[in-house]
């Protein structure tokens, strides 16, 4: 964690370091189990044998947020669930990323009413939005690969 304070901007050494760390982070990103509604079934289908997610490193879902670094919010977030979501997000250690899967997590979806939070980005900061109701497993995989590319481009000064 203190490496960027000691190494600073030393040119070639730090860019290679960024690449190595980016490589390590993306290839074993473990999501926290957070399937809420219908999108959870497509997430489970994406992890099953037909559209295998473990080839991207997401072999298992950790139940405990303290042992994971990715939160895939799959499903609609109701007003009662929103503080719980924020609580879980706060418990995840840095670095952490959030994918809002499906229309309900991205913008409230077809439920524009009193009970559903209109987009999970009102509660937690989101990195990738995956559209669809529910998105196909291939759509979720495309979202995950886009997240991997985003992570690989993160610079040293952005850490900590």
């Amino acid at each position, binding site marked *: 964690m203190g490496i960027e304070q000691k190494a600073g901007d030393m040119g070639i050494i730090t860019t290679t370091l960024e690449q190595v760390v980016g490589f390590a982070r993306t290839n074993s990103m473990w999501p926290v189990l957070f399937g809420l509604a219908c999108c959870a079934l497509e997430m489970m289908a994406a992890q*099953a044998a037909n559209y295998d997610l473990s080839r991207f490193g997401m072999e298992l879902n950790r139940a405990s947020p303290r042992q994971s670094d990715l939160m895939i919010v799959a499903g609609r977030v109701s007003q009662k669930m929103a503080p719980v979501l924020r609580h879980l997000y706060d418990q995840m250690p840095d670095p952490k990323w959030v994918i809002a899967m499906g229309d309900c997590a991205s913008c409230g979806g077809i439920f524009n009413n009193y009970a559903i939070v209109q987009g999970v980005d009102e509660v937690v900061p989101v990195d990738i939005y995956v559209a669809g109701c529910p998105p196909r497993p291939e759509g979720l995989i495309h979202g995950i690969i886009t997240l991997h590319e985003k992570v690989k481009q993160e610079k040293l000064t952005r850490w900590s």
Partner: protein
Amino acid sequence: MSDIREVTIPELAHLLSPRALSGETMLLNMGPQHPSTHGVLRLLLELDGEIVINCIPDIGFLHTGVEKNMESKTYEKAEVMTDRLDYTNPIGNNLVYCMAVEKLAELDVPPRAQVLRVILAELTRIASHLIWVGTSALDLAAMSLFLYTMRDREMILDMFEMCSGQRMMTTYVRPGGLWRDVPREFEEYLKQFLAVIPGRIDEYEDFLGKNPLFLDRTKGIGVINAEECMEWGISGPILRAAGVAYDIRKAYPYSGYDQYDFDIPTFPAGDVHDRFKVRMEEIRQSVRIVRQAFHHLPFGPVRSNNRKYVPPPRSEIGTSMEALIHHFKIWTEGFSPPKGSVYASTESPRGELSVYLESDGGPKPYRVKYRTPSFVNLQIMPFLTKGHFVADVVGIIGSIDVVLGDADR
């Protein structure tokens, strides 16, 4: 966004035993996010060591306000929201809503549409039971069965995608029939599916049925008998596992179910193991129904001709004035069934799924109430878990087969 509001013990005092107030027993929160709760269900367990004395379920974490939202949309637009209630059984939700609308409006449904509805409803039942078997086995730590059942479920989802373009939330069943006819590839694919699935079901039952760990974790756990089931209004596989042979498909046949020959599986003991066996038998009976329905599939239209409720085909619009007017009225204002209230019930994979629909003569439904099986079946949780270990609670939730989208609406 409010912070998490802590519920203090005195507020729940009327539900707990007196030992909780003195601190003798422990209150454990099995929170909304947990690997084994099939959705966002929160259980407050009062524990004496490892034994559960009391269990207070807390639902509402997936409340979507569907009933209120449907009151502000026309009948056809409101149907899109019904798919997403019980998301493992989307065609069943559509079907019960359309049955209520058809009963209210006295719409006819052509025979080909009835048979196709039965085929799709039974395929959805098989898919839902496959998900249930996979996730229940996952809860009881038999993890590989999950991958096998998901593979079979993909075949069913391919068939839905062939018909309607969407894998899960198809909105394929519409008032008056179906949205459109099934493509030619559907029949071929269905034949292949029916050839393969019986062998696989036998495989899955062998996988778990004789495993001593599975038998230990499920026999004698969460027992409920027939009298108590009727008192609590339980329906579906839980009632059938307690020995009562009651199935809405036989009692109030809808959509032509009385033409097919199938059995109602019942088992006497009423525990978790018998519910597993009931559901496996139900998959076999569903395959039997689909086979019979497929052999008796008649030719003909798939949607009613009643132009007051069903939009005309595009080819007619260019030639007929009435078709144009009907098209305009249906798509802008929506159809208006007569004033009154109806109650339509079907058998979903979880139990009795019914709709109470009330109309005031306008284009929007005045009140839609979904009587969902998960909401009612979840009430017996405190009753079933008394005296069991914490590890059994997980198996019991799995055997009730709760889908929280169904319970919270």
